């Protein structure tokens, strides 16, 4: 789960990682009362999209009046489809040097990866492309952790200002601690800066591994602060993995791989999916009826394809859910159903015993997709 900058910085606070003094504004009326920061300050739009600076979402205010003016200007702005509803007001520091630092998992090496560069404050992907030597990479053994000596060597190799090597080593170690102990998928700081007030993490891009929620009480609090797209809210409440797409064939399936594949096969037959909806493993009948309810809220849906391959999931329970949701109703769209695997015969029997004019059974995935596309056009 990607965090907002201010959320990442609240984690900096927990790990004693120095960062600019700041205030959070969730209503522009609060700007008037804002005290305790010394000017100049930076007004930063809190949106989860890159390029907010270029879009005018980051501005410097030299005094209180400017803060109110710029704050009102940026609040409510639309940055690439993201509405600004939170502002982070930070004391501006005098930046002497800008570096780049990140910790992430290198999936092919199955180790953690630190990347460090003296070329911070700019597009790091471009640096990596043009001057790969400027980006120092250090693999970290997950069982041993970040070795102090390796880190110090990387600081030298990356050509960072040696006058600050102790401070740098300290802040980078703390950022690693946040990454490791804090169960982050990503901790990225650009820039990690040398300022007139010492070394500071000026930005934060943190992503949390939500599988580790059981270890961290604050994950739920952070999650609750992140707005969910309106059309995905209901599905989330029902515990369904749902992503809205642009097409017209509603898709319900079990297992991410099979659902993705269903999307592809629908496309191969000239259609396009209106969503990705995975009912997960071991779904009960309620899950299936909730999935159908979710699709009912989407006016773009013209036909629905239910593609189930039972393993842990039992096809008879899926059929029960379909019957519960559709029995006696006049359906808005045709539903094409394909059931295979665990208890599929029982499932098909249940559907046969509860006929509906708009429900069609198909014997294989390819044919089912074709039918769903044709009946939805």
């Amino acid at each position: 789960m990607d965090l907002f900058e201010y959320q990442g910085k609240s984690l900096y606070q927990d790990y004693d990682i120095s960062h600019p003094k700041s205030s959070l504004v969730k209503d522009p009326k609060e700007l008037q009362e804002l005290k305790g920061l010394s000017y100049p300050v930076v007004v930063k739009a809190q949106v989860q999209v890159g390029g907010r600076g270029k879009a005018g979402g980051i501005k410097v205010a030299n005094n209180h009046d400017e803060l109110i003016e710029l704050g009102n200007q940026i609040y409510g702005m639309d940055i690439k489809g993201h509405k600004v509803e939170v502002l982070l007001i930070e004391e501006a520091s005098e930046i002497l040097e800008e570096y780049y630092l990140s910790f992430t998992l290198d999936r092919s090496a199955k180790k953690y990866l630190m990347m460090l560069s003296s070329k911070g404050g700019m597009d790091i992907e471009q640096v990596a492309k043009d001057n790969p030597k400027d980006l120092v990479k250090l693999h970290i053994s997950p069982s041993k952790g970040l070795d102090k000596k390796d880190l110090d060597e990387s600081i030298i190799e990356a050509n960072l200002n040696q006058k600050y090597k102790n401070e740098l080593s300290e802040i980078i170690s703390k950022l690693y601690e946040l990454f490791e102990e804090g169960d982050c998928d990503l901790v990225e700081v650009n820039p990690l800066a040398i300022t007139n007030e010492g070394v500071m993490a000026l930005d934060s891009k943190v992503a949390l591994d939500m599988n580790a929620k059981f270890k961290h009480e604050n994950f739920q609090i952070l999650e609750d602060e992140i707005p969910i797209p309106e059309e995905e809210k209901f599905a989330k409440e029902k515990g369904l993995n749902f992503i809205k797409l642009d097409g017209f064939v509603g898709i319900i399936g079990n297992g991410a791989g099979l659902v993705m594949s269903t999307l592809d096969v629908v496309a191969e037959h000239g259609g396009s999916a209106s969503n990705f909806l995975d009912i997960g493993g071991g779904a009960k009948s309620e899950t299936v009826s909730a999935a159908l309810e979710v699709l009912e809220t989407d006016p773009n849906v013209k036909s629905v394809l239910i593609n189930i391959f039972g393993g842990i999931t039992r096809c008879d329970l899926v059929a029960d859910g379909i019957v519960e949701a559709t029995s006696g109703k006049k359906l808005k769209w045709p539903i094409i159903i394909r059931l295979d695997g665990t208890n599929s015969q029982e499932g098909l029997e249940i559907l046969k015993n509860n006929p509906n004019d708009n429900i069609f059974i198909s014997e294989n995935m390819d044919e089912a997709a074709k039918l769903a596309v044709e009946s939805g056009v």
Partner: protein
Amino acid sequence: MAILIDENTRVVVQGLTGREGQFHALRNRDYGTNIVAGTRPGKGGENIESIPIFNTVEEAVKEEGANVAMTFVPPAFAKEAVLEAAFAGCELIVCITEGIPAKDEAEMYDIIKKETNSKLLGPNCPGLISPGKSNVGIMPHEITKQGNVGVVSRSGTLTYQAVHELTQLEIGQSTCIGIGGDPVPGMSFIDVLEEYEKDDETSSIVMIGEIGGSAEEEAADFIKNNISKPVVSYIAGVTAPPGKKMGHAGAIVSGNKGTALAKMDALKDAGVNVVSNPTKIGNAIKKVI
């Protein structure tokens, strides 16, 4: 032959007393798998449907000769359980558990690799089955058939789909393996492909991939230089929107690497027959056998 498991495999089930563990252990035993023990700390001495329960895997290995562990332990305890099985000397650990933190996965992989000789399959995988011999996992054995095609996949239900396509055409499988789609899987495509290449009973291979990561690209490289048997492949996620998480922690598209098209190109370049739709897998294999 088949790979990794066969009629001689002796399975200890970690978490046998849980609902899932029990259901699948008994189902697999009915299929003919030697389920010789279960573990549950504090429940040693009891039994479930005459499967003896031990407090530790070590005891199960010593008393019952278990050599493969099947793990259903909840995410918070899975790392410890998998390491316990590895240190007890299990040759293969099949971790079914879904939802283990990536850090725990990375750490347990690192320790197993450095300090033991065990192989780890999963976590978050459907396990594996050598049809007619042994089922260590949650795959529905009804859709399999004994034969000579080796199947390997990152996805669960998509594996079933592929196996089903083969069986429908009366094409049997030597072994079917789901390696799981998590960020740090134990055995990789390459590890499994290597086993299939060595196995006399396997004459061709089906490899199912999906978007995200670079495991398929790495496998393509390996196939080019090391695999002499024909390979048919399918990659899911051609139409998946970039940058969105699609259920599997693994399925994240990042940059050019990891897209379905990049993976398909790499595989085609390695001489693999890449099909555009999972229902075409069966016929593609039929052509090479």
